[in-house]
Structures are given as structure tokens and as C-alpha cells.
């Protein structure tokens, strides 16, 4: 997946979790959980969605690398 595919995937997954959220207002380095008020269950669902959409298995220990948009693009573009 390229960076643009990953962003689209993240946006689609987040739209299902936080329908009212406006992703365009979230900065690259901002913690998505803070910016979009995601709780533990929301974030787990986000990880599930990213994993299913990208085909990449994301271990729990790696969650902190997916807290920001720039981090998750880097992580999933491996």
C-alpha cells in the first residue's frame, strides 16, 4: 500500500468509529486518540480495521506506533 492508500483506509475505518470526526483537522503528529476522543475499544476497532484493510498483522506491542497519522503511514507502508 502506498501512503495515499493508507490514508484513505485510515479515514474510512475512522469514519465508522467516529462518524462526526473531521479528519482534515487532525495534524500529522497529533495523537488520534486525543484528537478524535477514541477510547480503548474505539482504538482496538481501529487496529482491527487497519489490519483487515492492509493485510498486515499488528501486534499489541506496536500500538503506540499507530497513535499518529504519520506513524501509522510509516508503519503500514513497510
Amino acid at each position, binding site marked *: 500500500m502506498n501512503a495515499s492508500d493508507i490514508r484513505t483506509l485510515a479515514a*474510512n475505518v475512522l469514519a465508522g*468509529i467516529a462518524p462526526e470526526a473531521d479528519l482534515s483537522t487532525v495534524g500529522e503528529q497529533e495523537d488520534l486518540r*486525543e484528537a478524535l476522543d477514541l*477510547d*480503548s*475499544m474505539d482504538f482496538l*476497532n481501529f487496529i*482491527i480495521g487497519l489490519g483487515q484493510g492492509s493485510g498486515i498483522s*499488528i501486534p*499489541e506491542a506496536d500500538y503506540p506506533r499507530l497513535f499518529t497519522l504519520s506513524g501509522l503511514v510509516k508503519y503500514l507502508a513497510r
Partner: protein
Amino acid sequence: MTDFTMPALGADMETGKVVQWCVKPGDTIHSGDVVAVVETHKGAIDVECFLDGVIDNLAPLDTDLPVGAVLATVRGAGVAAVASTAPAAPPAVQPVPTVAASPTIAGGATGVTRAKVSPAARRRAVELGVALDGLHGSGADGAVILADIERTVAPLAHTVKPGARPSPKTGFDPAQMRQAIAAAMGRSKREIPHYYLSSTIDFGAAQTWLEAWNRQREPIDRLLPAVLLLKAAAKALEEVPQLNGFYENDAYRPSPAIHVGWAVALRGGGLVAPALHDANHKTLADLMSALRDLVQRARAGGLRSSELMDPTITVTSLGDRGAESVLGVIYPPQVAIIGFGRVVLRPWVVDGQVVPRPLVTVSLAADHRVSDGHLGGQLLAAIDTALQSPDHL
């Protein structure tokens, strides 16, 4: 003929509005079926009817009706069931002892001929257009449960795809909900003499166990710390029944079942605490999927009436971004609320050494009309004990 009436979906509800009938006049319904969608300040609620028979005289849509108002009539409750079993057991030609035994046999046969389907599964099946016939049920006594329906479609489509779950009206009015919360909490503070306790619990054993569990599993099968806290609280309540039940008409009525009302914060403000039924008897994996389903429905619509009426205690967990502790307000007519703060890494003394440990603060607010702090302390101690042996949860 039995009246099916507007249920009281919590202490704070006075009126409701039927926005959709899921049945037609003349339809045969079975106990536990979702028959209507009622709009309340908690959003649109799927209302179950616990009668068997033929439903008729449906109340008009979009009209405010008080709690207790007749929504429909159900004909032949009980009678129809007996009639339908009659052909299966010809009593006239049987010797007396067999006749005596036949109601049981016939009753069992009736249960078998109609596939058992949970309300959630039935609803989802209708939404997805999945035929229930021939589906293998994996629930208790072979009932078709939600998971069986989900298995027939792309896994987890509903948690990641927007709009995959149509609902007649999913939203709630934040102003109305605030009013309802104010009314219930005001009543609680006026009527219930609260006492408060809190303890700090070493979450190390639970966290180590949880990390090992999650390491071996895909995200969909992973557990959240909240599930361990929930199960520990539910199991501890088995030992302290004085905190699990209802205070009504100047008397306390303990509940034999432990239905944990799980506090769910709603986006845009507001709070609802629907029941996780029999939480003490569910496995951690089952609790996790029940919790996922409940949170999803609390936010997107589709909570069931029983989930709002049944909680025997409330548990609130603030999650990984919440405050360190919470002192709750009891939701009447319940008599206690248990609160868990965020798990934090702090210095802690283990075997005489100061070491960093993950800690969680658990609190209890309980009703002094029913129990004292001594008993409340036993509950917190039992939660602590349960969390030190996570493999037994």
C-alpha cells in the same frame, strides 16, 4: 388476551414513542422477540415482548405515550402453546401415567421445532437478509446467537464500515438526555445515603496475563483490561449479594443474577449503562464480544429494552485515557456502583522492595440503607483477590 405495555426503560423514563413496529397485526410472536422500536432520551430502543401469542391492536406510531400505556394486545398467551402441542401427544389413547408425563414431553418438543434464536441474532438476520433455517446455533442449548449470523457475512463488517447497520433512528437528543441524567442523579443524591470506599490494586499479574493472551491472537480476539476488571467485579459480587439488587418501596431485594450495567460514554455527551447479562458466568472472550456489541449498539442505536431494565449494579471503567479514580453516583433503584480508574505505572512495594507496578484504583459507592463500609470493603478485597489470579477469571 394480555396487554403489552410501554416499559419503563430506567428510573428516569416517563414517556416513549413507538417509531417502528417490527411485527404486523396478526403476527405470532414468541417471548423475547423484538416487536417495536421505541424512541426515548436514550435513543431508539428495541423493545422486546416477553409473551407468546398473536399480537394485535398496535398503538399508533410517533405518539408520546406514558410508561404503562397499552402498546398492543397479545392473544392466546399460553393457550396457543397448549393447542399446538396437542397433536404431538394424543392423550386420549394413552394410559394415565403417560398423560401425566406428556406436558413435559410436548413442551420440550415445541422448543425443538422452533429454532431458538437470540433477539440480537434475529434482528441482525433481518437486517442482513440471512435465512435462519438451517443455521447452526452455537449458543447455549443450540440457540442461534449473534455470532452465528455475523459468521455468515464478512467478519466485523459492522465495526469498520460506516452505515453498514441501518437503524430507524440512531441518535439521541443530548439536551433531553442531560435532563434525564439530571433527574435520575438528583433523585439518587436526595434519596440515597451514599458511602464511599476505594482501594489501590496491583494490576501487574493481570497485565502480564493479558499481554501473553493478546500476543498469541489477532486483534479481533484480543481482550481489553476493562474485561478483566468487569469479570473480577462480577465474580466478587457473588460473595457480597447485599450490593447486587434493588432498593424499592423501603425494602432491599437482592438479585440472584448479576447483570452488570456497563457505563458507556456517548459521543457528543451523555451516558448509558446497559446490562451485560450474567457477567459472572461468561468467559472473558464472551464478555469481550458482548462488550464490543453493547458499546456499538449504545452508540449507534439498537439497545434492547431488557438491557436497560435489568442492570443489578453499575460498573464504570474510565479506560486508558481517563482519570485515576472515580467516585460514582448510584443509579436508582440499584444500591451500588463500582468504578475503575486508568491503569497507571507507579512505585509500589513488593517483598520489601520499591518497584514500578501497574496500579488501578477501584472505588465503591454504596447505599447505607442496605450495607455498611465493612461489607463494601469485603467487595473491594474480593475484586483485588480475583485480579491476582487472572487465569481463574
